[in-house]
């Protein structure tokens, strides 16, 4: 039990929140894309483009803000490429998504070559008088960077947008039945392109959080499958934003915990510990989404189907 005693619960919770932010951001973005009826398997590529754009720009300008903006724009632009291919040229969404991932990984390596081993400027952290000095709570809740708070705010915002606004309803309608949406007079293609670009920007933001805060440095292939986890989160969360948050925390939590356990030298094989976050997250999400018909009801009925005006 000594080994476990060396893990500080305070640091653990704080780092869980940091570890879950990238997949939360990317997952929320993909959720909006899928709610509009588009399956974008390029999240991994979008994330790493965001990671490298954010890193490079903040090193060049010395401004973290410029870096974050570059990540948003980079992700949105690569998203736009995917959108044009799938929405205008009607290419297959699955194949195009996979290509986007491969393209993103390659392009990021190219852009990132000069930045290997460089230290980025540090992202400022929130400091509130008194609150940040509170024991435990201060460290856990009031001492993070703005992007982390933004990611939590986006969770609520996206939930509200989809559930309670007309624009959100239109987006869901487009994902549910694009022919009916068209016949009422909504612009299916335009809605989807905007959703894909938003998803790209969110994934880019998640990526740059990895390279600027979580790690923080640039290495090739540094997203290491985070994009795929984000994709899985969306499905297992039954397309609900708050469950994406839950899943992200769970995944982040087990990741951090197993790293701590490794460091503490617990007598479990490293391979088992490393695989634990994936296994635990999937098992838990499968269990909470066990009600199959409820899950299918939430799934956008037009997910992955190409839309074209037939007459």
């Amino acid at each position, binding site marked *: 039990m000594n080994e476990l005693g060396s893990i500080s619960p305070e640091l653990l919770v704080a780092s869980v929140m940091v570890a879950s932010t990238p997949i939360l951001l990317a997952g929320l973005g993909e959720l909006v894309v899928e709610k509009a009826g588009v399956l974008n398997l390029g999240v991994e590529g979008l994330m790493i483009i965001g990671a490298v754009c954010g890193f490079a720009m903040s090193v060049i300008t010395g401004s973290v803000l410029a870096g974050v903006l570059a990540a948003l724009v980079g992700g949105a632009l690569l998203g736009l490429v995917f959108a044009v291919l799938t929405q205008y040229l009607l290419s297959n969404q699955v194949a195009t998504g996979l290509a986007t991932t491969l393209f993103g990984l390659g392009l990021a390596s190219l852009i990132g070559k000069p930045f290997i081993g460089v230290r980025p400027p540090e992202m400022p952290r929130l400091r509130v008088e008194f609150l940040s000095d509170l024991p435990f709570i201060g460290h856990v809740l009031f001492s993070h960077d703005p992007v982390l708070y933004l990611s939590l705010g986006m969770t609520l915002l996206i939930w509200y947008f989809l559930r309670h606004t007309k624009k959100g*309803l239109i987006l869901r*309608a487009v994902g*549910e*039945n694009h022919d009916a949406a068209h016949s*009422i*007079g909504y612009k299916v293609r335009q809605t989807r392109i905007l959703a894909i670009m938003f998803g790209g920007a969110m994934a880019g933001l998640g990526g740059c959080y990895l390279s600027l805060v979580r790690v923080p440095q640039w290495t090739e292939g540094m997203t290491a499958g985070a994009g795929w986890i984000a994709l899985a989160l969306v499905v297992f969360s039954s397309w609900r934003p708050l469950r994406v948050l839950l899943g992200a925390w769970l995944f982040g939590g087990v990741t951090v915990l197993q790293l701590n356990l490794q460091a503490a030298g617990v007598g479990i094989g490293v391979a088992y510990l490393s695989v634990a976050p994936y296994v635990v997250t999937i098992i838990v999400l499968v269990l909470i989404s066990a009600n199959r*018909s409820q899950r299918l*009801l939430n799934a956008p009925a037009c997910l992955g189907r190409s839309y074209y005006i037939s007459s």
Partner: protein
Amino acid sequence: MSKADTHRTDAGRQFGPLLCLQELSKAYPGVQACDQISMSIDHSAIHALLGENGAGKSTLVKMIYGLVRPDSGSMSFNGSAFAPAQPRTARAAGVAMVFQHFSLFEALTVSENILLSLDDAQMAGIAERIRGVAESYHLLLEPGRMVGDLSAGERQRVEIVRCLMQNPKLLIMDEPTSVLTPQEVDSLFGTLRRLAGEGTSILYISHKLEEIRELCADATILRQGKVVDSCDPRECSAEQLAEMMVGTSIGRAGSKQKMRDRILLRVAGLSLENSAPFGVNLSDINFDLHAGEILGIAGIAGNGQDELQGALSGELPVSSGQCQLHGEDVITHSSSRRRKLGLLTAPEQRLGHAASPDMSLTENTLLSGTLRMKLAPRGIVDWKHTRRFATDIIEGFDVRTSGTQAAARSLSGGNLQKFLIGREILQKPEVLVVNQPTWGVDANAAAAVRRALIQLADAGSGILVISQDLDELLEISDRIAVLSAGRLSRSLPTSETSRTEIGLLMAESQDATS
């Protein structure tokens, strides 16, 4: 509501036509969908638009609703020029439309569905507005319910309330009664007459001639994209209207044969649980099908029709019950084994279920005929034999197509259906289960399909016809039972029953469950 009331009474007093179309034309690659169509609709009129499938009715109303832009021609609405570039413009001018295939979103609530077609409304307070309009027209609607859980009649009420909330001057209804029970049709007609009385004009598209004769005072008849005639349908017989529509007279299905004794198919205690969203469970289905008999299963789609067909074909696993073909229980047999024994099915969905859209007719023949017609002896496809079989179907059932190599997708609905029914009939089934055999099929092809089914029954096969079209069942079947909310009623001999009796049976079981 007050705004709506004033415009309705104002409109009632205006003179001249509400909508005037002048030489509207629209061509698609290979087809002239609309060819110089001129017509006008008066204020407060219920105007029928008649025509077969492909006559250009849908394209015409899509142009009025702003979904399709005409190639040439002009429209005027309420006295001023009218050229809507999108549905929003048409709605703003006062045109509302109820679509043939409901344009509703199943996974959204009634409120959300209605909100989507109101350009100015927001989420707050929508439920109260819906209740207000629904109550003032005696249309029962619960705004919070999921549309996927509603019956066809309720869905149509959603569409109608949605249109009424736009305060339309012109309401377009595309084949509105194809999925309604006779009682629901009556109440729909009541609503429409009241609307017309209040000054709303209605453009009513249908191919059900009796309904048009009952409801409409004017009719414009389209054939192959052209206006061929116009008349007052109350002064024409259904036969005259049909002749105007088709250009020739339509043959009726042949005479009915007497019921025979030998039981071919016995279904006992069949239950099925369907976990798909909006799927229906079947509970305790019992019926016998005799040799030479046509048993009609009436009822509105979405009450277990697809599940019943799936259970009989072997596509859906059942939870309990028996299905005996010649006394042998086949309920655990695979689809192919059932086919081999002579239990064939023709599903509702033509493209994607009954036929593979991009495969040729020959290849599609192979899909269902391999076993019974021995098209692939020892696993090797005999293409020559298969092509001959496809040719036999095309010739035997008057399928208009460029040949056996044509893709299934390229055939019109009616021709494809003749091909698909022909494909099963030529395999000489012991029992044939057909689901909605004439859904979306033009009148001539529908008559041909019905004739073919009757001939098959006369030759001694048993046929189960699942159909929403009550007139069709009354015409061809020997007995009729009603499937509602997954339960099958007792069957009534067709000669001793009436539309009203069956309609009541349909409505009763529906009320019992909702």
